[in-house]
């Protein structure tokens, strides 16, 4: 029976510095691109980290590969595509936009739209109801309460 500590043990070798100075490129602009791209790629060994933070051997190899491709002149998209071709969808932190992932990328919009609709419905329903009577339902209630509290008790 494994438990939480086992999962952490797997993670431990990883909890250290990841990108090494000897991997880093001389050109700061290229290096910056490399770091950004690395953050978009998931480490296939320590699966909840990107290759920028992971200490796994494969992560290091991939970081070096990313930089090689950048030096060779690939665009950001091409570099990611190169690694995507070898490891599949899973390695992308940002899911690709295709038919199967359309639901995912549309979901925020759909949810927002639904919220908007619900909000609109509730507010207009409230407005409609208020327009029907001179006083609204709880204005009536308030009046009733006010009268009751301020009527002297036990007297006329």
């Amino acid at each position, binding site marked *: 029976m494994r438990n939480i500590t086992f999962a952490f043990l797997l993670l431990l070798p990883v909890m250290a510095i990841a990108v090494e100075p000897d991997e880093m490129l001389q050109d700061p602009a290229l290096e910056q691109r490399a770091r950004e791209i690395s953050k978009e790629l998931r480490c296939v060994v320590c699966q909840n980290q990107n290759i920028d933070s992971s200490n796994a051997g494969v992560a290091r*190899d991939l970081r070096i590969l990313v930089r090689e491709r950048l030096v060779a002149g690939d665009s950001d998209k091409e570099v990611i595509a190169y690694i995507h071709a070898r*490891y*599949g969808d899973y390695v992308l932190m940002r899911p690709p936009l295709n038919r199967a992932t359309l639901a995912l990328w549309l979901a925020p919009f759909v949810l927002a739209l639904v919220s908007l609709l619900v909000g609109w419905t509730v507010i207009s329903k409230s407005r409609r109801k208020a327009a029907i009577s001179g006083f609204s339902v709880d204005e009536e209630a308030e009046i009733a309460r006010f009268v009751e509290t301020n009527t002297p008790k036990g007297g006329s």
Partner: protein
Amino acid sequence: MGRLLAFVPLAVAAILGGFFLWGLNPDRDPNNIPSVLISQPAPEFDLAAVDGLETPGLSRADLVGNPGPVIVNVFASWCVPCRAEHGVLTQMVEKDGLTLFGINYKDKPEDATKWLAELGNPYERIGSDLSGREGIEWGLSGVPETFIVGSDGTVLFRYVGPVVGDAAISTFTEALVQAGALIRGQNG
């Protein structure tokens, strides 16, 4: 309308529940990432032989035109499970007459040579991948990983981890049968 709307949360929960039930299938391994190479031609590569070994190197050309499917095993001397797996692979070569190729991953040639001298060398060919770049071409996440490659050079199957233990061996054997490398009933 309000009546219907009130059922929406329940409906959503039920749908999610269905997915969860599916997800709990004990055969499912949430950590396993499928290989992109399955049903694809093996990557183009040409690896030199391991320094100090007589076994020739491995290239893509060696994977094409074989009489039957071959096994490509990625291993290293520093990999402890590879040791355990070695015996199983040797069995497959000697008893079942399977062809075994190897990729020696990030291993110093002296270490690999010593390791094979100690345990025996069932590999017909071994390519030396010192940098690990070739491993990336095969979508490697660690060692050992073992592939079954068809006679036309198409990757048919990938096994992650050591082929050790009844479950692993039977899975791998089944894959070999599917690939046509073994006849059903032969002992793995």
